[in-house]
């Protein structure tokens, strides 16, 4: 059972990272950015391309991952900002549905844009960037053995631990940024009352751009980690994960930062426990049954009623 929970938390940390971007954007402009999952996918493709294309990156060892993370953060963040400025901002005062449909269109654009460039087949993650290879030993027979840490009667591999720790650090940093800094305060102010925020001297457009940069960059990070861990990426991988992250955001209470984190981990756990009980083929069914349950029974999510810290 411990192992089931550990696996759930691990998968949940991916959901949480992506759900954060969903939730931040919803909090600030009340838009369900359905292109967000595809930013995650785009981040993974950027990482893969860097591993292939940057000369000498293989000699950096695990430092190569730091380099591709950085490139991916910059490029996915910028992509998010551009998407907002070109596709969503002109529709700021349009009916919600128009923007929502635009977001779906943007999602297709990213998916099939990537397919056009890198092709429809799943891409193997280059061997110079596989996390497990850096964190394993070679045993007597020459086979690679993953290093792992026992936790109660289960275990987490070093790679899982690194990803989990990285996700936790990122989320803590984001919570501090939103909660304590001048810019974070401005973001919360816009989420509450856009006009009042601009009367305080907040540059609303610049702040919304900043939210898109941060949210997209976090998805980009998740994309690279996904590639480095699972070793294979496809142009449609953002579709399902995006929907799962959306589910996580709803479970936690969309628009709520802590809700996104909690929802991500909760969904990971629910899936993990559910598949253990019912079998792996029920995994996605399980997730979306919870989405429907929450939407009908408690649409505000777990933390939805605590309106404090909204955004």
């Amino acid at each position, binding site marked *: 059972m411990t192992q089931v929970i550990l696996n759930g938390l691990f998968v949940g940390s991916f959901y949480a990272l992506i759900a954060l971007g969903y939730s931040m954007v919803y909090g600030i402009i009340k838009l369900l950015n359905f292109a967000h999952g595809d930013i995650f996918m785009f981040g993974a493709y950027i990482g893969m391309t860097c591993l292939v294309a940057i000369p000498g990156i293989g000699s950096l060892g695990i430092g190569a991952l730091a380099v591709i993370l950085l490139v991916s953060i910059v490029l996915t963040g910028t992509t998010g900002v551009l998407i907002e400025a070109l596709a969503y901002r002109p529709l700021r005062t349009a009916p919600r549905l128009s923007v929502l449909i635009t977001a779906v269109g943007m999602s297709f654009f990213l998916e099939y844009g990537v397919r056009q460039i890198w092709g429809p087949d799943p891409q193997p993650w280059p061997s110079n960037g596989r996390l497990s290879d850096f964190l394993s030993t070679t045993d007597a027979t020459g086979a690679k053995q993953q290093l792992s840490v026992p936790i109660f009667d289960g275990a987490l591999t070093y790679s899982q631990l690194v990803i989990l720790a990285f996700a936790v650090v990122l989320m803590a940093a984001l919570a501090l940024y939103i909660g304590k800094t*001048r810019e974070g305060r*401005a973001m*919360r102010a816009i989420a*509450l*009352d856009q006009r009042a925020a*601009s*009367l305080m*001297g*907040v540059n609303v457009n610049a702040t919304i751009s900043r939210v898109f940069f941060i949210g997209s960059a976090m998805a980009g990070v998740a994309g690279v980690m996904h590639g480095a861990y699972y070793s294979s990426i496809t142009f449609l991988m953002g579709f399902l994960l995006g929907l799962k992250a959306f589910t996580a955001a709803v479970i936690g209470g969309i628009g709520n930062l802590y809700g996104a984190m909690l929802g991500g981990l909760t969904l990971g756990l629910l899936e993990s426990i559910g598949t253990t009980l019912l079998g792996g083929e029920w995994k996605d069914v399980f997730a979306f049954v919870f989405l429907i349950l929450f939407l009908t029974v408690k649409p505000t999510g777990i933390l939805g009623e605590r309106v*404090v810290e909204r955004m």
Partner: protein
Amino acid sequence: MSWLEVKDVDLFYGKVQALRGLSFGVEQGEIVALLGNNGAGKSTTLNMVSGIFRPATGSVNWDGHDITKIKAHKLVEMGIAQVPEGRRIFSTMTVEENLKLGGYTVRDKATITRRIERVFHLMPRLGERRSQEGGTLSGGEQQMLAIGRALITSPKLLLLDEPSMGLAPLLVAQVMEIIHHINEAGTTVLIVEQNAKAALKIAHRAYVIDNGTVTLSGPAAELAQDQRVIEAYLGM
């Protein structure tokens, strides 16, 4: 030209015209009141001066600048602050956070802290409630907070939109007293009020706006005696 000069302004919401050839002026150091009924265009005028709405024709000049096309957040930085209608407190943020947001354009943290303390000195009730959420304050306290929040930038021009709205008469007098203080400390004030009586008590001059244009203007003391104003706005 006046220090703040609004000249021949037309402003539309879609196809509906809200302001029609509106002109008025405010001199440095004054308290000027804009009076008029609901829907006369008073709030629209303040929001236009604040840069939220842009006029179709006409111009707004202030302190030697043409500010007709300058954006709201820039104007705050330049020295125009607004206390919006309905207060618009950030309800889930604490009193202190609300005040810090008021100082968003002030880069120096020590200056913000000093000015927040000055607001607490001017309005001690806020100081007592500094860690309380804005939404939990009473109407009067929220109005104080909205005014305090606008003072953190040390504005040259303070715009107030219906500061007496929804307040008991005693509180209205208190709020007007605070505005009077702020003006005496050197801030020019442009105040929009439906409560003409309260506004005329502290204002130097006033304009009556009807249907998007100025219909009467003059020193506050004179307007308070004007039969037309008494009948239409003072309810006597």
